[in-house]
């Protein structure tokens, strides 16, 4: 078996599992990584890490996980395994069936989907999958060498996934999707510990990587951020680089946009007296948020975990809430279409460049990225977190000086309501961890009244 399963190899596994099944209904999924990570692709995971201008570790792992869901009437259970021998798969099917018989009836159980047609997404790039240890080492050298030349300290992470996901069920449904993705991030610090600059990039296609550019950006920021001064916390106009926008926007989508919590009265999107805010203007009218798996900048899976075909979904259109996340059960209850969970998202923007946003700002703060963002109050989608690795005071359209990092307590909804200017959208590495996360395409923005609560001494 190859490291990355072909369509036929994936189908052979799902057929075998379905052949072992004695349940009323069975669904089998092919996924990646170990038991702790549900989302990533089955296949190859590889990375190279560096710190102190030297490669510190690198690694490769190959894994295929098979998840079996068996159902008897309204009783169901799931089992996942990476033991793919006939005996291993048969035992997994039997165990899931035994657990399913023990489960209580689920009043919200949904039948398996009938066979679906999926429009292919061209998300697989050989040049990403072929990035072996030598090529990864070569790809991180420009950052290491540039940092050494500049007498600075670089740390960073280049990681890639290359593999597939597949889903099949006992009604004959089968879906297969092959994909690659990389994320390359670096933090450069000054030897005296008073300056730190970050840069990062992510895409399905390795040819989009620009290691020299990353090195240049992180080094310039490290130098520029040296010896920051403290400024008084309070509400500020901020220019948020696209990564910072993605850091906050992800949370809005992942944690706040469920339809059911909204309908049940426990969400920002709940309407007083019942129902939800679909159809209401919730943010600035220039904001449109869309999930479209076929967008060449997103290239996400054409189906979800149940085999539901992905569609282009507009969550917010011209500032108006158009959709919340409906699973199949809740969609049926509310007589609407299921949306699935957004595997990727794009926010539309304008034509301005980051420099234009800075130039238009009389007094404000430029933020490179955010860190340790945590929810404070789901009623207002209020989050806390901190700036890091490049925070600057803007005065009269120019970066005036580096400032100490700041803690914010702010809501992404308020951020999108107080918009001043939008820049050009771009794909960013939007996860705080630098792992390959969901594809996010967002513009840098300028927004008013962004609330900073306190100063941090961290550099």
């Amino acid at each position, binding site marked *: 078996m190859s490291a990355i399963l072909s369509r036929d190899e994936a189908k052979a596994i799902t057929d075998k599992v379905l052949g072992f099944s004695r349940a009323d209904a069975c669904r089998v999924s092919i996924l990646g990584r170990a038991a702790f990570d549900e989302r990533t692709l089955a296949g190859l995971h590889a*990375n190279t890490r560096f710190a102190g201008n030297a490669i510190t570790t690198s690694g490769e*792992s190959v894994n295929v996980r098979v998840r079996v869901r068996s159902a008897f009437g309204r009783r169901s259970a*799931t089992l996942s395994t990476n*033991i793919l021998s006939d005996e291993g798969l048969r035992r997994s099917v039997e165990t899931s069936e035994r657990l399913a018989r*023990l489960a209580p009836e*689920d009043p919200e159980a949904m039948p398996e989907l009938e066979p679906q047609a999926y429009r292919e997404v061209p998300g697989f790039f050989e040049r990403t999958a072929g990035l072996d*240890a*030598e090529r990864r080492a070569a790809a991180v050298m420009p950052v290491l060498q540039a940092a050494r030349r500049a007498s600075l300290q670089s740390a960073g992470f280049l990681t890639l996934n290359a593999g597939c996901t597949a889903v099949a069920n006992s009604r004959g449904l089968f879906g297969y999707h092959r994909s690659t993705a990389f994320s390359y991030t670096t933090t450069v610090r000054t030897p005296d510990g008073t300056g730190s600059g970050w840069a990062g990039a992510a895409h399905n296609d390795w040819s989009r990587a620009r290691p020299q550019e990353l090195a240049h950006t992180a080094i310039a920021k490290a130098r520029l951020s040296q010896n920051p001064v403290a400024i008084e916390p309070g509400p500020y106009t901020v220019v948020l680089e696209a990564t910072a926008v993605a850091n906050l926007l992800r949370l809005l989508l992942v944690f706040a946009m469920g339809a059911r919590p909204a309908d049940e009265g426990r969400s920002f999107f709940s309407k007083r*007296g019942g129902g939800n805010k679909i159809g209401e203007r919730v943010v600035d009218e220039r904001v449109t948020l869309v999930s479209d798996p076929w967008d060449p900048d997103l290239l996400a899976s054409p189906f979800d975990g149940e085999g539901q075909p992905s569609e282009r979904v507009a969550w917010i259109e011209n500032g108006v809430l158009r959709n919340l996340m409906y699973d199949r059960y809740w969609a049926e209850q509310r007589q609407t279409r299921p949306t699935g969970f957004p595997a990727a998202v794009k926010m539309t923007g304008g034509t301005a460049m980051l420099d234009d946003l800075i130039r238009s700002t009389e007094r404000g703060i430029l933020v490179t990225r955010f860190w340790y963002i945590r929810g404070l109050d789901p009623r207002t989608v209020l989050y806390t977190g901190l700036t890091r690795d490049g925070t600057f005071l803007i005065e009269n359209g120019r970066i005036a000086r580096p400032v100490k990092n700041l803690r914010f307590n702010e809501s992404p909804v308020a951020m999108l309501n107080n918009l001043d200017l939008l820049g050009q959208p771009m794909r960013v590495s939007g996860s705080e961890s630098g792992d390959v996360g969901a594809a996010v395409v967002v513009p840098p923005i300028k927004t008013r009244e962004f609330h900073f609560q306190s100063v941090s001494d961290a550099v």
Partner: protein
Amino acid sequence: MALLALDAARSAGASYADVRVSGVRTQSVETRENRVTDLSDGESFGFGIRVLVGGAWGFAASRDLSRPEVQRVARAAAQQARANRRALERPIVLAPADPVPDGRWSSPARIDPFEVPVEQKVDLLLRANAEALRVRGARFVSSSMDFVRDERTYANTDGTFTVQTVVRSDPAMTVTAVAPDASDFQSRQSDDVQPMGIGYEHVEQSDFIGNAPRWAEEAVQKLSARSVDAGSYDLVLHPTHLWLTIHESIGHPTELDRALGYEANYAGTSFLAPPRDIINRFRFGSEIMSVQADRRQPGSLSAIGWDDDGVPADEWLLIRNGIVTDYQTTRDQVAWISDLTGVRRSHGCSYAQTWADVQFQRMPNVSLLPGEQDLSAEDLIAATDRGIYIQGAGAYSIDHQRYNFQFGGQVFHEIHNGRLGAILKDVTYQARTPDFWNAMDMIGGRRSYRLGGSFTDGKGQPSQSNAVSHGCPPARFRNVTVINTGRGR
């Protein structure tokens, strides 16, 4: 198989190699109100080989334990190391460790969670949910049990061979109350019950059915609770809350790799740097503050026989009477600070979340030692004029050098003239780590000490999850800044 892997690694040019073969079972039972939302079992089997070639690390892993694949993976690990040598600043030096030819260790689990019938678990959770929903105003309840059994075999070219079984159990519940006009909703999590490194007996001892009504009542009470007035307060922090403050503000900054910049790109560095300015010099907290690291406390999440370097579980002080004395270390880190600490061996902090991930320095149990006086939380409250008593952990956030933090909680009571007053809401406190710990002026005694912990502490790239416990007594902190997070409503 382990010996085959080590032989293949040596043949591929490794001066040192280790192999981990691991089989992990997981089980998750999740419910909400009167239904089961998820019932899933998982198993994952595979191996990872780590090699030193020319002083550089390389790592590779696979789920396929066949002979040719083991040999391929050993060669792949060596290739990684060779590729990495081109960017090596100084070769890896491993601290000495005595070989353990046949080590055996198991978590002290009395009841194997995987032997307990699923219907018994479901029945317990649904009955507890029903008890919570019996409370007027409680609208939603979710509850869950998560179990892990990790059977890890480890071998290295120094002659160590260990077989260990790690068991972890994490039962949890959240009750949500919604105001009749949907103008407000408030939740209470079951933080009195913490994850532990023991078996199903932990679930039985947790008494969800008995506790659920109280958690529900507290969620309902929060609806009508007074929103806190922002300002400066004395805080009395219960162990169900304080463990997380310890984790974030003491556990992470005393990780040696962070202090030396190895985690700069994600988890961050540490304000405890450079070590030569810190060890035996830096005052972290007040005189009554002593902090112990260990991987030995029975039932704790980090407890183990030998770490993923083959080093025996240790117990040592990180902070003595407020002064930092040491860091958390692995074999390849000891040489960085041994001249400062006088410690020539690893403290045994090497850990990898699965066979597919490379091991690196992870947090052991980090615990605040109790005081000499036999004080309880009630004694601390009785000695406080104006303050807030916080139980349970809420939203938490801390900067990437672990200076500036902001923590919430589950249940907040005002303290007035030594007595507990009304319940409060929208409470969050902010502080700078050394200021906060230097403001600690009262601490509970041995009888008030208990363990809290995290099932999923994240660090590293790719991000790995670690389970760790933190013991502490209740403690009092003077004049801490409290803010109101109900702004904008």
